[in-house]
């Protein structure tokens, strides 16, 4: 617990909490019109009293847009990571615990999938299915599954060799109970760490996909989409890119810091 209170931990946790707060509470406090109201007279205006972060090319207030975009971006990334866990966790556990032929076949498949860059996989899936909100989630989720499966398998393998698992077997514990009582609790820390880091990458991935037009589509707005829209106006209004870009950076930074500290705290090699 004490290690969480390091500077890194505090900053990381604060950023994450802030972003979560905005994502969850934001839409309740901010009426959607405030983000979609177009004011063509004030388009591409710089930061001012009326518009704290300025406006975009359609005169929409960037502050509110980026706040609402939080929910979209986090929502997509979070659901995608959840999807990758739902698929990858059982796969990894079965592979690492039972080993043998099942493990060989599954891991060969996973290794081959890992030869495809995650972003590429996500792009292809999204393009093939047709870019929209749920397909983006599916695309990013599937792209991140092989990596998670590998991590889970590694952990399951490590835990399955521990003497307490052998002791439980000697006590008559069957496979299902073994997985529930002993394997799962001992791999969850690493899974959580990995999930945090994957979340960071998922946000970056969604931003990349949207930037290329193969991710979130209007009328939904995500940070990536905002950056993409700002491409033509970089010279005259760089804040249109910097505001959403900054949001991405802060969120990812916070998640990376948090994940780092989490990894240190939950390191199984440190015995109590």
């Amino acid at each position: 617990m004490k290690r969480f209170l390091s500077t890194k931990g505090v900053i990381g946790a604060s950023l994450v909490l802030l972003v979560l707060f905005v994502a969850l509470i934001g839409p309740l406090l901010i009426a959607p019109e405030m983000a979609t109201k177009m004011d063509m007279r004030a388009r591409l205006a710089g930061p001012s009293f009326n518009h704290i972060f300025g406006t975009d090319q359609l005169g929409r207030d960037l502050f509110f847009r980026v706040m609402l975009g939080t929910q979209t971006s986090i929502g997509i990334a979070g659901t995608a990571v959840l999807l990758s866990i739902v698929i990858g966790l059982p796969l990894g556990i079965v592979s690492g615990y039972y080993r043998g032929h099942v493990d060989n076949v599954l891991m060969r498949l996973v290794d081959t999938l890992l030869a495809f860059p995650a972003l590429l996989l996500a792009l292809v899936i999204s393009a093939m299915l047709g870019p929209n909100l749920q397909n983006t989630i599916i695309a990013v989720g599937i792209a991140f599954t092989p990596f998670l499966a590998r991590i889970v398998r590694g952990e399951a393998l490590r835990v399955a060799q521990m003497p307490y698992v052998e002791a439980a077997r000697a006590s008559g514990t069957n496979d299902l109970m073994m997985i529930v009582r002993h394997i799962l609790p001992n791999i969850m820390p690493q899974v959580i760490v990995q999930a945090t880091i994957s979340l960071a990458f998922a946000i970056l991935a969604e931003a990349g996909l949207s930037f290329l037009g193969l991710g979130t589509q209007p009328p939904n707005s995500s940070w990536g989409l905002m950056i993409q829209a700002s491409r033509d106006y970089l010279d005259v209004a760089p804040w249109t890119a910097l505001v959403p870009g900054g949001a991405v950076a802060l969120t990812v930074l916070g998640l990376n810091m948090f994940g780092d500290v989490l990894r240190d705290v939950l390191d199984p090699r440190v015995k109590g």
Partner: protein
Amino acid sequence: MSFLLNRLLSIALTLVLISMITFAVTNILPGDVAMMIMGTQSNPEALAGLRQSLGLNDPLIVQYGRWVFGMLTGDWGNSLIFKVPITELLGQKIRSSALIVVLSMAIALAAAVPLGVWAAVHRNKWQDTLSSSTALLGVSLPDFFWGIMMILLFARALGWLPSSGVADPATDFGAALRYALLPSLALGLGLMAHLTRMTRSAMVGILNQEFVRVARAKGLSERVVIWRYALANAIGPVMTIAGLQVGYLFGSIIVVETLFNYTGMGWLTYQALLNRDVPLIQATVFVIAAVVMLINLLVDLLYVLVDPRIRLE
């Protein structure tokens, strides 16, 4: 000898799997190729005729076989949007992308390894905090953001380097380099940040090992202990990590090349995806995955040179 045979078998198997996955992923579309060529509003009979001639009514296995056979004999089909044989398109694109991949990796490694070692040696002191914080920031920003920064700074503000365009390294290396520099920097910065963190992590682990203490007890200077004894053990892990990053890099080039209008493999892939040019998508995805796999293989083989413990296998 059997080692080599095993390896070749492995490569062949993986290539087959890659082709299968590529084919599978590109055939889950709701629409179909014929409609893409002729448009959704076209005459249903003409569509049916086109489907027949393209062989789209055959079972998937047959289509797959046809595709693989075509690849093995050098016929990769024609691109739907460019209307030329795909093999013609790939040559220059591969070379241009190879240039920025190699360049960005070189930039990243050259900076990351010393920085990472420096941070590890001074861990938990200001040098470490500075280096690690900067690296953390670097990892948290998307590549295209760096790209945009590079454009704003070097192209628009300073005007030193072009912000778009490409040249074939085979024909004009100097020009190719000029166009490649900014994209490589954009890619390299994010990569460098990640590699710095990994190098630091690997070095910290090595410095905790007993043989480092023994080397000090021998009376060797700290400089020799760190930069020869310890670093020699870090090359292997860093190489592996860098190899894994190449995969990530090939994903990033899609975004970065598009941003810079640098027509390499990434740009090509994006165009294909945007326009649902299925034959081209299949080709580019396959090439990228195959290249990534081969590079990882190369790293595995090089690892044997670096770590004598592996040689026995």
